[in-house]
């Protein structure tokens, strides 16, 4: 494919778009892993929402 004299601008724009989307996906996946690990640690310690839940706890 020939992008003509402005190929560098077109390719850079697509690289930026891919980097932004990849960054978003990585942030969400890593955040989920981090939170899952903490929740698993609580579970291992015997602390869970079911065992400790109060009426005001909606989460």
């Amino acid at each position, binding site marked *: 494919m020939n992008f003509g004299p402005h*190929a560098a*601008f077109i390719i850079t724009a697509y690289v*930026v778009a891919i980097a932004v989307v990849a960054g978003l996906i990585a942030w969400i996946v890593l955040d989920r892993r981090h939170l899952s690990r903490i929740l698993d640690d609580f579970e291992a310690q015997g602390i869970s929402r079911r065992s400790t839940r109060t009426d005001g706890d909606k989460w």
Partner: protein
Amino acid sequence: MSLIDLANPSRFLALTARALPWLAAATVLAFAIGISQVYLAPDDYQQGATVKIMFIHVPAAWLGIFAWIVMSVAALGTLVWRHPLADVAAKAAAPIGAAFTLMCLVTGSLWGRPMWGTYWVWDARLTSVLVLFLMYLGVIALWRTIDDPAQAARTAAILTLVGAINIPIIKFSVDWWNTLHQPASVFRLGGSTIHPAILVPLIVMAVAFTLLFLTLHLAAMRNEIMRRRVRTLMMLQAGARMGP
């Protein structure tokens, strides 16, 4: 399944766990179709191949605005109905909206340099989108500054609704002021001014970007619910350590 069932975070997690793989698959499929259409789309008679930047720039701009609209609706849910999932939806949408707005600004700059001869001008459209990006950063900073999620949600909701004034300004800036940015060419009275050979790939890419936003937003909402569970457990643990 009614809307009220989704109000329960556990039901929301169960439902989205089933929906997310399908949504992600639909996103990948839409992008595969969109990218192939972009590849086959002809060059513009004036802009040449740089028109290919439009296929990512315009959907990114739409999604940057759409995310703020989602946050504004969620802000109403927070302030009027005090709906806990509304807080979660608003908080999860902010970084995604900021990322799409940043993508819009950078790709627009890269498109502007060869077409306008400059990366940036302080015209109404570009400036109002930059203001949108800065407002996203402000809302994200606000969420991080206030420890209590309920209080942070209410404060962020007010800022979001005030910031919603900028959305019509972005949309109509090209009509109200004399700008270097082109006027509306897709959604306008009298129909689109874009040839179908370019318009169809643009619409397909816009659908793909929208599916991507929905997928990322739901996944980020799930994370936020988990973060609140972690916070609750930490508080319970701290309370247990302190004793009765």
